[in-house]
């Protein structure tokens, strides 16, 4: 009996580790395959470049993980990025008569974050108070947000002020590590602690796992849900800051296009279930890096642009397949 238990608990340990970290294993497998297929791939510059490129969608993915764990979804991220980004650029490009920026850079940034978080709040309120399905609410809010920003910009691309402090956010590095990636990692750490160590994090899981039981345990279900939408909103705002600073311009029609799907894909590749109640941020991080690697390899291997989609689709399937295998 004792013996059996011990053997069992060892097997259990292995199975638990695999369950929790299979995505990391998959990640290294992909890394090695890529390195063999294209030695240039492993050059530090290329790897750092991948990290920079994926950070924007990755940051949205971090917030998206919260929403999905709580049983929701956010399809408005792309348009929200455009909306809050447009506000950022509009304020950032204002100059005084002498040509200096009209306000310190922090003001447009805070406004940008406030707008995106605000739209997240609106999403949350509509979903919880009107009891409507998140899919349709966030889809509709996204369509509306895109339309409003197009209206105000008359569809055009608006250029901001190209000051180094601003463009450096998205394009700079610290000790060679791209600043967007540093931001993503810092944010991931904060959110990871929130998700796993704080009461709020537990409630997010509880709400996604069984909303009714959460309610009967005295958890303020609506508030938790609204908070998750505000988190993804905030993350989207942060992504907007980086995206805007990379180009110092915003395109009303196309900024952030389809980012929500990239983000959701990264979250799912990372092993978070769309049913809610289960998930982890480490998975999301690996998920978005994998997506970045796929795109990068398409260039490295000079795959026909027509077939790029086929390769991407196959890699996505492969990534989710491997780690779900054990079920």
């Amino acid at each position, binding site marked *: 009996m004792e013996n059996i238990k011990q053997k069992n608990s060892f097997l259990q340990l292995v199975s638990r580790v695999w369950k929790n970290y299979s995505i990391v294993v998959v990640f290294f497998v992909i890394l090695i395959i890529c390195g063999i297929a294209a030695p240039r791939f492993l050059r530090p*510059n*290329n790897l750092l470049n991948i990290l920079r490129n994926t950070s924007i969608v990755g940051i949205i993915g971090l917030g998206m993980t919260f929403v999905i764990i709580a049983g929701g979804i956010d399809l408005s991220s792309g348009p929200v990025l455009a909306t809050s980004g447009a506000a950022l650029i509009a304020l950032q490009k204002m100059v005084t008569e002498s040509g200096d920026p009209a306000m310190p850079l922090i003001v447009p940034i805070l406004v940008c974050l406030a707008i995106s978080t605000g739209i997240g709040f609106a999403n949350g309120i509509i979903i919880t108070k009107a009891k409507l399905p998140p899919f349709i609410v966030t889809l509709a809010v996204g369509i509306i947000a895109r339309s409003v920003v197009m209206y105000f910009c008359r*569809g055009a691309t608006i250029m901001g002020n190209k000051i180094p402090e601003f463009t450096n956010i998205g394009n700079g590095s610290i000790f060679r590590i791209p600043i967007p990636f540093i931001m993503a990692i810092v944010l991931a750490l904060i959110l990871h602690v929130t998700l796993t160590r704080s009461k709020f994090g537990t409630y997010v899981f509880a709400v996604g796992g069984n909303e009714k039981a959460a309610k009967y345990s005295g958890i303020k279900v609506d508030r938790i849900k609204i908070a998750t939408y505000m988190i993804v909103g905030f993350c989207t705002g942060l992504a907007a800051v980086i995206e805007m600073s*990379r180009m110092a311009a915003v395109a009303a*029609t196309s*900024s952030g296009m389809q980012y929500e799907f990239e983000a959701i894909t990264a979250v799912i590749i990372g092993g978070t279930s769309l049913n809610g109640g289960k998930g982890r941020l480490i998975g999301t991080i690996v998920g978005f890096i994998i997506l970045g690697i796929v795109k990068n390899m398409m260039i*490295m291997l000079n795959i026909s642009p027509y077939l790029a989609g086929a390769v991407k689709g196959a890699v996505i399937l492969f990534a989710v397949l491997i780690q779900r295998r054990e079920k």
Partner: protein
Amino acid sequence: QQEVAEGVMRIAVSFPPANNAWQAKMLDSALDEAAKDVDEFHFVIKNAVDDADQLNILTTFKEDAYDMIICLPGNGTLMTPICEDIYDAGIKLIIVDRPIDSDKYTALLGGDNYLCGSNAAKYMGDRLGGKGDIAILRSYVGIPIDLDRYNGFADVIKKDYPGINIVVEADGQFNQDAGLNAMSNILPAYDKIDAVYCQDDEAAVGAITAIENAGRTDVQFVTGFGGSKAAYKLLSEGNPIFGASMSYWPTMGGRALALGKSIFRGESFEKINHDPTFVVTKENVGEFHQHSY
């Protein structure tokens, strides 16, 4: 792996998404050109899924230290900073079709959407005798080419043909189905439409089908844009309501690559080259078939 033999020039090409036939032909003509002279040049051609992706791709190209980068910017304004960086890094840069907001490039092979739009306005204004009610089918409202094609048209109408009213605008989205749907919604709403300005040939073909299906005789003619096979076919068949296609051709993709090759071969070149624009009608369509997409 694409390790390249000594002396072979590495050229990278970045296009926006191939989500319409014009863009697809652009890619196709580029692929054809890339397949030639392989012992002299090594080409990498990449379509981006969106602006940020194009930025990422261009960054990757820059990091990868190509000898030349050819870029058709999905959004010229957004791609300006990276293009400047590329140029500053000493990489030769050819900009295709749409300008960037800077003159830091080696050469520009420009199409001229704004000019084509103006051509359409002149054609339409003259044929309608300076007055009438018209509809516009735009091409993904708000994207840069849409704005160029729209503004080129609307500016001339406003200035030179005050008697012409733009009564309704809808989105033809660069494809036949969208053109058909949009036009079929417009027709019942307006009893008299004299002409339709379509900012894309494919959408124009769809719009013509809608007009024919509805049996409307008030619509005198439709103009298209771009130079698609389907449109040229209608023109050469003598379709009564297809007026003209404001054409400039996606084959400039291949020509841009050829320009790149000639620069490396030390041939002389102009910095700024504008691809000619044509008003293709029943009468002259015969000369242009080989350029269509």
